[in-house]
């Protein structure tokens, strides 16, 4: 995180757009699916053909309510407006969006560091199509022609608008990461930023602590957590430099260039379009019944914060590395497996570490992994029967083919090395490295690692690290 100079403070609010994981689009029955042949998921409604009319997708409403409930919002009677502007990827030349009366308002999101970010609203709207400019520079100006794919047109979105409560780029990143976890947990979104199913705009301004908010700039379409953090830092420093040179910040929309690592003007406020919002007369007011709301609330799964706390509770004195591993376990959705392992007598810290590191590549495989076998592998590692390297290898085999961990270890030749043969190797290596041994004897504990490394090399990783250290201690 960049430290801001001279008592400056940044003020950040985020607008997160997330595509909802519905089967069909927001106002028609077309499939909501990424990656199909262009213009194959279209119908008269999402193509905006004359005479067609929108009908609201109830499942989208349910997912929107789940997001609102997870963010502690009030679910309120709401309406849909038309946002009018001409653009070819907009099939009706207006976008249907909630405006002054959103379905979700006035919530908050608590971050792992204990800070709280307010949620102003989380409203529903439809996505636009996608334009590809062919020829010329590849941008609209100068292109030979433009091709429009309407498959995404009408895909349901929820836009989550935070209050300007964020004070650092790291906090912005944490907010986005936590929100992403919530969106995935609710089943509302797959959270895939690289596919555009979660997109972030950041409103950034700076001020001296305690002063009123400064003029803000909006940075559009940040599509990774890293971009988000970098763009906010860049933008805050740009504004500070401007102000310290006696300039003023102009309210504008800016573009983040990932390669150059800088933001640049996209359009200034004076050019902002007048969207002529008005209630869409083709749609009726949306007022989910209390019974419907209650049913959605009752079916809401546990959110990441709660799940995280439950996993952390299995650790006695969690280290920061262990907390990071817990985070990975939650992201992978594997905490139920961890709880089962702990219940079956497995060591929690080791279980969390192995799950976070060894199952990350293929979390689906974990669902077929036998809990008892996993616990046995952990026990073998803890007892010294297997080295860490060996234990990971046994685990990989278990994941791929299943089986009995002891038999697998035996088949791989991971038999525990006898104390005698280990002692002989240790003696040999001490004799070959008298200087290092002298320093170790003189109290330099770091040299234990040097000797352990040599032993591991000599035994091709079959020795148990703890046993090696014990042998060294004996000879000290």
């Amino acid at each position, binding site marked *: 995180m960049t430290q801001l100079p001279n008592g400056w403070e940044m003020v950040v609010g985020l607008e997160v757009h997330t595509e909802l994981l519905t089967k069909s689009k927001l106002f028609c029955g077309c499939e909501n699916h990424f990656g199909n042949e262009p213009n194959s998921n279209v119908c*008269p409604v999402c193509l905006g053909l*004359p005479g067609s009319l*929108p009908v609201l997708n109830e499942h989208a409403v349910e997912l929107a309510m789940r997001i609102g409930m997870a963010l502690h919002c009030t679910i309120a009677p709401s309406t849909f407006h038309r946002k009018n502007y001409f653009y*070819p990827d907009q099939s*009706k030349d207006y976008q249907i969006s909630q405006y002054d009366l959103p379905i979700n308002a006035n919530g908050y999101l608590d971050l792992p560091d204990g800070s709280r970010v307010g949620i102003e609203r989380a409203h529903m709207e439809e996505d636009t199509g996608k334009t590809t400019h062919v020829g010329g520079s590849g941008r609209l100006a100068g292109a030979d022609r433009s091709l429009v794919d309407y498959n995404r047109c009408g895909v349901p979105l929820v836009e989550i608008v935070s209050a300007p409560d964020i004070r650092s780029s790291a906090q912005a990143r944490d907010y986005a990461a936590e929100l992403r976890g919530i969106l995935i947990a609710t089943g509302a979104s797959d959270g895939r930023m690289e596919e555009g199913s979660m997109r972030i705009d950041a409103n950034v301004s700076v001020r001296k602590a305690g002063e009123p908010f400064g003029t803000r700039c909006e940075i559009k379409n940040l599509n990774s957590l890293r971009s988000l953090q970098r763009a906010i830092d860049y933008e805050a420093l740009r504004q500070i430099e401007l102000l310290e040179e006696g300039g003023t910040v102009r309210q504008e929309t800016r573009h983040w260039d990932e390669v150059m690592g800088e933001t640049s003007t996209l359009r200034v406020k004076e050019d902002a379009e007048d969207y*002529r919002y*008005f209630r869409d*007369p*083709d749609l009726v007011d949306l007022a989910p019944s209390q019974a419907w709301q209650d049913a959605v609330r009752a079916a809401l799964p546990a959110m990441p914060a709660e799940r995280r706390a439950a996993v952390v509770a299995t650790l006695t004195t969690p280290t920061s590395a262990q907390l990071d591993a817990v985070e990975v376990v939650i992201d992978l959705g594997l905490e139920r497996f961890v709880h089962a392992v702990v219940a079956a007598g497995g060591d929690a810290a080791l279980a969390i570490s192995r799950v976070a590191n060894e199952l990350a590549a293929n979390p689906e495989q974990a669902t077929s992994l036998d809990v008892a076998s996993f616990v046995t592998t952990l026990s073998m590692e803890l007892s010294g029967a297997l080295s860490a390297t060996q234990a990971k290898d046994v685990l990989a085999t278990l994941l791929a083919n299943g089986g009995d961990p002891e038999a697998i270890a035996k088949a791989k030749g991971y038999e525990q090395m006898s104390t005698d043969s280990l002692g002989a190797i240790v003696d040999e290596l001490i004799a070959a490295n008298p200087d290092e041994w002298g320093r170790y004897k003189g109290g330099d504990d770091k040299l234990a690692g040097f000797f352990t490394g040599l032993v591991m090399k000599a035994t091709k990783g079959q020795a148990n690290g703890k046993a090696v250290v014990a042998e060294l201690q004996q000879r000290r």
Partner: protein
Amino acid sequence: MKTAQQIATAVTTGASSATAEVQASLAAIAARNDELNVFLYVDGERATAAAAAIDERIARGETVGPLAGVPIAIKDNLCQIDVPTTCSSKMLEGWRPPYNATVIDRLVAAGAIPMGKTNLDEFAMGSSTENSAFGPTRNPLDPARVPGGSSGGSAAAVAADMTTISLGSDTGGSIRQPAALCGIVGVKPTYGLVSRYGLIAFASSLDQIGPFSKTVTDSALLLEVLAGYDPMDSTSLNEPAPSLVAHVNDGVAGKRVGLVKELYEGSDPEVLASVAKAADALREAGAEIVELSIPELSLGLSAYYLIAPAEASSNLARYDGVRFGNRVDGADVTAMMEATRTMGFGAEVKRRIMLGTYALSAGYFDAYYGQALKVRTLTINAFAKAYAQVDFLLGATTPGVAFEFGTKTKDPMAMYLNDVFTIPTNLAGDPALSVPFGTGEADLPIGVQLLGPGRSEATLLAAARVLEIADGRP
């Protein structure tokens, strides 16, 4: 000339055939369409094939439906698969929809045979059909005069006996006004009673599809077929469709009728006389006439000319040359859109898009669109207050009879004022109809208007039937 009901009965019983009815309709269209410009597209081939299929089904003993073999004319702002649909605009010339409006599906399921698409004011914006990009429709009763609008083609089709029934759409009077000017019956149903799916929108919160016919009973019959919940239209009323034909002879005995000053004041003397005689006829049939004043109704026209253009400015944005309809090339996408819209839209459409865009603009929204919405609420409340005292209202449909071409085209306000009596109902979303009653200047027909609370179609049709009989059409 048979009624739709009589045709359906004759076709069903074998006294006639769908094929014979379609041939008769095609002959009537051929006889006068060049002169009157009623149909923009005559769908002879498909209609003939549909008739043959119905005749086969009847020969096999199948039940076809309440409109078996009845030819019907369709206003050209309703989508029908593969049938050119233009809204009388150059913008959509040559466009063929890939889907049917719900009302087309319902008509076909009932055995009706769409004969083709009728002329209208471009995008249903107008009161004379003079705003069509494909030339005006002439009034069959006097070809020097307008048939009214915007559904002028559909009204003229029935008046010229090309079909016995037709479909129109009514945003501010576009069914009732041409019905009055052509001397036929026209009904604007309760908002939401008939699905708008496939009706090319002018002003979504006001548009409603409805029937034209020579007789009140035929309008009841057609409206029964059209009405009913449609999941494709979010504003569709999720209630059972009303029973109308069974109640058409229920009369008006014991009904209280409000004779509303604001719904006839300023009309031609003959129109005033017709309204007074209609009140007498209802009284003689056992109704009680109550004279009413609803001052809020005089604000309706102003509110309408902000709300309807505002919605239209957004509804018509999609005609940008990108996906369908005509395109005029430009140096870039913005230039292409501008050139397309400049070429594709006529003067009245452009005027209303500009009005509506202005009314919704930042800084003007509250003073114009916002204020108009308040007037709309006032209108709704004023009607509701009136319906707490009376069962339905009586007034004129238009201030005068059919006017001659060009007399109101120079002054948009004069044209707009022709809808002053019909507009308030659209703002309220309530039903209203026009039924011929008496004649005026040059022996041309006069229509009187009956207005009722939401879902009172059966009451209004029964009252219209009373007037029909009193006017000499038993």
